């Protein structure tokens, strides 16, 4: 016997129920009421309609033909006003209809905050196509829009209106956006991305009133701030639409109460969608509604079925704001976090674990692995075996956690392996497929690692990953016990994967310790600041004490202080200030160094800021006698005074020192400038030496006079001082970008070859690009660390002095 099924509400949930029933050819005569003047469409796609990416026609799910074909009697634009359970009828604006089974699928109504002015024209909620069209129409006049509510709906409305050219401000009551789906860190990143699209975001903003005479004109906030507004969108939340059910005396809590068969307190009345409540739980996303629809269809057809709520995940449909959240990520007793961040790339991942099961995930910036994590949450997978690498996502799983090849295996095909020749991983893989099975063949066919050679390790790893056991990697020493990677491998990873923070390197390169050690951290700190001078923040805690305290530590724990004397030139005033400081701080030893300046040895750590302050006041700055960076530029008296001098070697030395000071390099960097080949400044045993000649300047590099004594080799000869400066900036930058931490220039030169360095500076375009990158880095680092530390002197003092207490 055909039963009469009456459905109130043609929304996403009831639409699905009908599809199941008709697919199963169930025997129902369906009458469908909808308050909206249309049938079922994909409500969640209203945001693309608002932003203009889609039209209403694109998102219709059931058209007139479909209802017709399935014999549905449609009452669209017809509000149901009452249910008579005794008579088993429903009454609408147009009349009364009898039912055998009734389905309530009335969805939700937007929540409207009860403030003055809420009913003014120009105040819109965001729920259906009419709201969407009203917003589109309002935006055509341009002007200012205020969106109240920084949740999913509010932000999609804001993005759509901004896309349509309105000047949009989002007001959010809580401290960060989408607080129900995101934690603070992800909310912060989201805010940044929205602000990049010109949307203003105000958090902790409480709306007091909406102002206007006969249409909205402004929004008044707590604290008396007034925001002009031509349009106000209220998107502060929804509440289940339960009025009919309440009137019909069905059991209603926040929503219409149902059992796991979606049956209400009246056995012939069912409810589905956002209007229902099950065990105190409400449903506001389509995924669980679709599950409900399937169960309800089975219930109606007499097939036993049970609805069980599952974990939910959320994404935001705003292009360019890549976020994902799932499960429960509140902090709680017994829960642990795994966090991965890369601030510079705007990537944030956080997993919340409880008893070796992932219970929550929040991701921002790179959400590609969202569904995989969601699966782990849903299936309650035991993750103890993959815990170490879990946060990196599925690409890292399966191998041993410390498999040195996993990082390279996970690289995408377009990851650049060889920086010199711009060769990507994919090209190397192709070359291997075409028969290149060793390093030499890869070099010959792709040019990868054929230039400076620092990517050799990575190329070998690509070979090993691709060829498996057929390729045995020559073992090169790793940086330290924290990693299996060599310095060169890590440097290539930092560049090609744009790793801009230490945690990013630790994670992407599979560090085996939580935060590195005293060997790798100083190296990484240098590599990061050399490669990303603007983005990376120098980490003093990863520096050796000399560089952290900007002074050389002595065997008794005191320090030495060496102010700069540019090019070895000083003045009576400077000498007086040094003498005064030596007296004032009772400096035990004052010595002239081998670097043409004066060393104050034996200063107490806590006196450092005070002695620096005195030297600063006399115009002197740190001499960096402690740094892996520019030390000294020794000069001779040159053409100013010397009868043989060919050029102004003193002046050039001072210029060079003023340009290079403050720069960080793989190891210390010393220069010398001699005025003629007699070479009184010993330029040819420095890292970079300049010997002036009649026709210009001979620049040579790779000298040393420490544990190894070496003579420099000629890099090039140039005619002008400006060229000298450019060549030296370029060669320093190339050393900095490619050299291994703690290799002096001569060691770096032995690896990459003088020819290669010569090519770098001979190509004028490349020389200029290197010099420009050097200047960029110096815009951050050419400053006096002493002055900065004088202003922030507390770390040099004891935390507390308990000598008195102990004496009591």
């Amino acid at each position, binding site marked *: 016997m055909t039963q009469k099924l009456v459905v109130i509400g043609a929304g996403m949930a009831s639409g699905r129920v009908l599809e199941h029933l008709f697919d199963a050819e169930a025997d129902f005569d369906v009458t469908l009421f909808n308050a909206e003047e249309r049938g079922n469409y994909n409500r969640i796609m209203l945001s693309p309609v608002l932003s203009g990416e889609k039209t209403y026609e694109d998102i219709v799910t059931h058209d007139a033909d479909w209802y017709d074909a399935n014999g549905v009697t449609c009452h669209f634009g017809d509000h149901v006003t009452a249910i008579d359970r005794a008579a088993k009828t429903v009454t609408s604006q147009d009349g009364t209809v009898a039912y055998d089974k009734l389905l309530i699928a009335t969805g939700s109504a937007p929540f409207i905050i009860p403030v003055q002015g809420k009913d003014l024209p120009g105040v819109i909620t965001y729920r259906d196509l009419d709201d969407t069209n009203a917003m589109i129409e309002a935006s055509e006049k341009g002007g200012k829009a205020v969106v109240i509510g920084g949740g999913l709906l509010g932000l999609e409305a804001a993005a759509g209106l901004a896309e349509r050219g309105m000047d949009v401000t989002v007001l959010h009551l809580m401290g960060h956006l989408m607080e129900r789906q995101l934690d603070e860190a992800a909310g912060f990143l989201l805010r940044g991305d929205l602000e990049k699209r010109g949307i203003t975001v105000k958090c902790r903003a409480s709306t007091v009133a909406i102002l206007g005479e006969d249409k909205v004109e402004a929004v008044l906030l707590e604290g008396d701030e007034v925001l002009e507004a031509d349009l106000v969108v209220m998107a502060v939340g929804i509440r289940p639409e339960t009025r009919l059910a309440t009137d019909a005396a069905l059991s209603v809590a926040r929503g219409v109460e149902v059992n796991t068969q979606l049956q209400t307190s009246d056995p012939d009345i069912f409810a589905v969608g956002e209007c229902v409540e099950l065990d105190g739980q409400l449903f506001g996303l389509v995924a669980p509604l679709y599950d409900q629809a399937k169960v309800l269809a089975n219930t109606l057809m007499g097939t036993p079925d049970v609805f069980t709520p599952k974990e939910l995940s959320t994404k935001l449909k705003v292009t360019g704001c890549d976020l994902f959240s799932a499960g429960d990520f509140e902090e709680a007793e017994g829960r642990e976090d795994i966090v991965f961040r890369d601030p510079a790339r705007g990537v944030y991942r956080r997993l919340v674990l409880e008893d070796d099961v992932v219970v929550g995930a929040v991701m921002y910036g790179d959400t590609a692995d969202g569904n995989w994590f969601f699966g782990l949450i849903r299936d309650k997978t035991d993750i103890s075996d993959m815990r170490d690498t879990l946060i990196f996502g599925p690409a890292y799983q399966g191998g041993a956690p410390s498999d040195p090849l996993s990082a390279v295996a996970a690289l995408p095909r377009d990851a650049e392996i060889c920086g010199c020749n711009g060769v990507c991983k994919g090209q190397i893989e192709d070359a291997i497929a075409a028969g290149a099975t060793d390093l030499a063949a890869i070099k010959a066919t792709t040019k990868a690692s054929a230039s400076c050679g620092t990517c050799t390790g990575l190329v070998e790893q690509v070979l090993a990953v691709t060829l498996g056991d057929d390729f045995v990697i020559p073992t090169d020493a790793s940086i330290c016990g924290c990693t299996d990677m060599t310095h060169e491998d890590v440097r290539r990873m930092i560049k090609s994967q744009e790793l801009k923070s230490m945690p990013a390197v630790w994670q992407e390169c599979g560090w085996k310790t939580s935060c590195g050690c005293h060997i790798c951290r100083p190296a990484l700190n240098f590599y990061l600041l050399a490669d990303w001078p603007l983005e990376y923040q120098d980490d003093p805690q*990863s520096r050796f004490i000399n560089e952290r305290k900007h002074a050389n530590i002595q065997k008794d724990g005191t320090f030495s202080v060496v102010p700069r004397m540019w090019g070895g030139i000083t003045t009576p005033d400077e000498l007086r200030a040094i003498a005064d400081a030596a007296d004032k701080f009772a400096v035990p030893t004052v010595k002239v160094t081998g670097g043409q300046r004066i060393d104050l040895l034996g200063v107490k750590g806590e006196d450092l800021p005070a002695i620096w302050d005195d030297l600063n006041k006399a115009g002197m700055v740190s001499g960096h006698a402690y740094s892996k960076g520019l030390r000294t530029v020794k000069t001779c008296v040159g053409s100013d005074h010397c009868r043989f001098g060919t050029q102004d070697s003193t002046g050039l030395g001072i210029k060079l020192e003023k340009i290079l000071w403050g720069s960080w390099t793989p190891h210390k960097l010393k220069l010398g400038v001699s005025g003629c080949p007699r070479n009184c400044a010993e330029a040819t045993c420095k890292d970079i030496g300049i010997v002036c000649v009649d026709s210009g300047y001979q620049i040579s590099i790779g000298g040393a006079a420490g544990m190894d004594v070496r003579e420099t080799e000629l890099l090039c000869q140039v005619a002008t001082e400006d060229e000298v400066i450019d060549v030296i900036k370029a060669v320093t930058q190339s050393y900095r970008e490619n050299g291994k931490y703690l290799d002096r220039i001569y060691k770096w030169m032995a690896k990459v070859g003088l020819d290669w360095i010569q090519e770098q500076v001979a190509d004028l375009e490349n020389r200029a690009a290197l010099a420009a990158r050097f200047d960029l880095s110096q815009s951050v680092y050419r400053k006096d660390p002493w002055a900065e530390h004088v202003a922030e002197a507390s770390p040099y003092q004891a935390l507390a002095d308990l000598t008195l*207490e102990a004496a009591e």
Partner: protein
Amino acid sequence: MNALPDEWLDIASLDAVPQRGARLVKTAHGCVAVFRTGDNKVFALDNACPHKKGPLADGIVHGSEVTCPLHNWVISLETGAVQGADEGQVETYPARVEDGRILLDVAFLKRRDAA
């Protein structure tokens, strides 16, 4: 002196010591180094390496260990024991963090007095 009833001494705010860093507390019998690790645990040890009295507070902190700045001996902050092939022991003192404040056990002062 603001000793708490349970004899813990409030020394300073946790923020006063940098993460993976250390600051000194002066006592009548030499300096104690208060370390803060990357995961915000605090430890208090004598500021003198068993090798040649290197100032441990000036070392690099990694995990729950510090590397001496003078000749790279590695010392466990948790036990004070020298790690690896070298041998030695540094005195450690009770320390903890509560409500963002670093607390040291008053008894440690007494113990140092007696030393």
